[in-house]
C-alpha cells in the first residue's frame, strides 16, 4: 500500500485541537497511545472501487474518461451518477483537463468490456446518470479488469487498487478512498483494545471528492449511502452511557452517524442515505471528535469541520498547518479535532477539557516540537 510504504508516511504528522482550541503537534504513529478507556473509535470500512474508466464515446468516436461519482441506489448495481473528462490523464490537474465530447441522453459509451448508456444529463454538461448493461457480476468483472482507481495529480506514479484500500477495507462501495482510515493499522487496533479503547466500523460509500468544476464542487458531497451494523449502534450506546467519547475516523463517518441519529440520541442501525451537508450550524449529536486529513478552506470537508470548531479556531489551524508544513491531500498528514462544547452542555465532560489524551506531564507521546 502506497500510503504505508512511502517513507514520509512513517514521519506523518498529527495536529490535535482540543475543545478549548489549544493546538498540539505529534507524530502520527503515536496515535495508538491516544484516547482513554471507554472511548470509541468508528471507522469507515468501505473498500474503493476502480471507479475511473477510459473508453470511447460512441456517437462521436472520441476518447472519454468516466468517473463513477455516486450510487443512484445502493440496491441497484447498474446505475451511477458519473462525471466525464476528455483526453488526458491524472498528471493534469482535474480542473485543467480538456472537456469531454458533448454527452446526451441515449449516448452509448464503450468502456473496456463494459457498455454503458447515458440515461440523462443532470444539472451540468459533464454530469449525468448512466446505466451499465449487464448484472452485478459482469459490472464488477468489467470494473476489476478495465477500471482504475481515481488518480491524483499530486501523485505522479499510477495508483493501483491496493494502494487505495485501507487496512480495514471490506465492502467495495466507495468511489474514492475513505482516506482518514489510512492512519489505521492492526497494531494500533490491538493496542487500543488492550487499553480499553473501543473500535467499531460502518460502511459509507464515499463519493468523488473533486470534479474539476468549481460549480459542481460546491454541490459535493453527493448523497452517500451507508450501513451501520447493529453491533456498532450498540457500541455507541454503551460508550455514551459510560461517558466515553465517540471519535469518527474520517468525515464520512461523521456524515453517516449524524444522519442516523434518532430523536432520543441513539443511532439507527441499518441502511441509510446521507443527504444533508454538515456545516457550521449543524449540531453534532453523536460525534465528539474527528480524525481527518488536512483540509483547506473552501473544501466541503473543511466546511464540515466548522461544526466542530469556531472560525477563529479553524483559522488558527490553517495558520498552524501552513507554518508547520502539514501536507494536505489523501495521503498527507492528519488532524484530530475535538468539537466545541455543546450549547446547553448535554455532555458533562464536554464542558471542561480533561484528559482526552494523556496529560502533558506524564505523556509518553512523541511530540515533534
Amino acid at each position, binding site marked *: 500500500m502506497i500510503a504505508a510504504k512511502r517513507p514520509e508516511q512513517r514521519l506523518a504528522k498529527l495536529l490535535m485541537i482540543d475543545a478549548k482550541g489549544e493546538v498540539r503537534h505529534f507524530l502520527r504513529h503515536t496515535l495508538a497511545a491516544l484516547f482513554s478507556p471507554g472511548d470509541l473509535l468508528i471507522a469507515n*470500512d468501505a*473498500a474503493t*472501487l*476502480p471507479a475511473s474508466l477510459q473508453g470511447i464515446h460512441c456517437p462521436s468516436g472520441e476518447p472519454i474518461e468516466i468517473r463513477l461519482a455516486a*450510487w443512484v441506489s*445502493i*440496491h*441497484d*448495481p447498474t446505475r451511477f451518477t458519473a462525471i466525464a473528462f476528455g483526453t488526458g490523464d491524472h498528471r493534469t490537474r482535474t480542473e485543467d483537463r480538456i472537456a469531454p465530447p458533448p454527452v446526451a441522453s441515449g449516448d452509448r459509451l464503450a468502456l473496456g468490456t463494459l457498455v454503458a448508456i447515458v440515461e440523462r444529463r443532470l444539472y451540468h454538461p459533464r454530469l449525468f446518470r448512466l446505466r451499465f448493461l449487464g448484472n*452485478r*457480476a459482469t459490472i*464488477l*468483472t468489467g*470494473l*476489476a*479488469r478495465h477500471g482504475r482507481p481515481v488518480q491524483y495529480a499530486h501523485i505522479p506514479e499510477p495508483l*493501483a*487498487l*491496493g494502494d487505495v*484500500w*485501507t*487496512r*480495514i*477495507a*471490506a*465492502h*467495495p*462501495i466507495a468511489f474514492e478512498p475513505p482516506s482518514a482510515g489510512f492512519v489505521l493499522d*492492526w497494531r494500533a*487496533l*490491538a493496542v487500543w*483494545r488492550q487499553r480499553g479503547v473501543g473500535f*467499531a*466500523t460502518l*460502511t459509507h460509500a464515499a463519493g468523488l471528492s473533486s470534479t474539476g468544476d468549481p460549480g459542481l464542487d460546491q454541490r459535493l458531497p453527493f448523497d452517500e449511502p451507508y*450501513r451501520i*451494523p*447493529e*453491533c456498532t449502534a450498540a457500541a455507541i450506546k454503551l460508550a455514551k452511557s459510560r461517558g466515553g467519547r465517540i471519535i469518527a475516523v474520517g468525515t464520512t463517518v461523521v456524515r453517516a452517524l449524524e444522519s442516523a441519529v434518532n430523536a432520543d440520541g441513539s443511532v439507527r442501525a441499518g*441502511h441509510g442515505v446521507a443527504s444533508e451537508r454538515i456545516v457550521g450550524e449543524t449540531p453534532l449529536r453523536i460525534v465528539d471528535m474527528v480524525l481527518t486529513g488536512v483540509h483547506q478552506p473552501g473544501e466541503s470537508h473543511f466546511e464540515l469541520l466548522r461544526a466542530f470548531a469556531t472560525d477563529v479556531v479553524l483559522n488558527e489551524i490553517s495558520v498552524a498547518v501552513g507554518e508547520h508544513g502539514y501536507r494536505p491531500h489523501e495521503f498527507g498528514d492528519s488532524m484530530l479535532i475535538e468539537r466545541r462544547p455543546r450549547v446547553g452542555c448535554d455532555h458533562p465532560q464536554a464542558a471542561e477539557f480533561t484528559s482526552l489524551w494523556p496529560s502533558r506531564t506524564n505523556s509518553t507521546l512523541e511530540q515533534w516540537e
Partner: protein
Amino acid sequence: MPINLDLKGLRVAVTGGTRGLGLALVRLLAGRGARVAFVARTARAVEQIAGETGAFGIVGDIGRKEDIHPIAVQVTGNLSGLDVLINNASALGPIPLALLADTECEELEQALMVNLLGPFRLTKALFGALVASAREGCGAVVINISSDAAVNAYSSWGAYGSSKAALRHLTAIWAEEAKTEGVSFLSLDPGDMDTPLHALAVPGADPTMLRRPEDAAAEIVGSLIAALPSEPARPAAVHP
C-alpha cells in the same frame, strides 16, 4: 464424511476452483447453500464451473500480484462480504518434479508465488472483510490447504514442500495474531488425492490408491463448520 449442516448464506471464496480439490469444494459448498466465489486462471473453465454450480467465477492468477485486488473486489462485491477464504490453488514447481540441485530458481519462485505469496496477499486484501464478518458475529475462517510434504522431507518435492512448509508456518503465526480479531486460521492436509496436480507430480500413480477429492472436500467442510460460531448472525445481502 456426510455434511448435514445447512450452509445457507455462508460467504466463501475458493482459489483454484475449477479442478481437483477446489472444484470438489465449490460443488459441495454451493450444493449446501453457501454463496461461493471461486478463482481460476482459465476463462473457459471458470465459465463452465460457474454455469454448473451457480457460484461466482473469477478469472485471475493468485501468483500475480496485480491480480490480487481485482480478485478481492469481485469476491467481496459479489458476496457482499466474506466469511471464509480457502486458499487452495497450488503450484508444484518443476514438472516433472526435480531434485533441488536440478530445480531452476524461477521454478522455486513460481511455487512460492502461488503457494505462499498468493495466499498471503489475498488473505491480507480480504482481511478487513473477514474481520468485519467476525465483528458482526458471523465468524471468519481462513483455510490454507497444506500437504504432508510441508512436514516431511521428500526427495524431489523441494519447491512444493518448502513453499507449503512456509505456508503452514505463516498460517500458524497468523492464527495467533488474528485470534483477538475473531478470525480463525486452519492449515489442513487433504492427503494424496486423485487430482490433476497429483497426476503431474506422480504420473504413474494408481488412482484407486488415492483419495477422492470429494471425500477430502467433505472433511475440510467439516473442519470449517467446527471453526464457525454455532449460531452465526448471517446478514442478508447488503451491498450491490
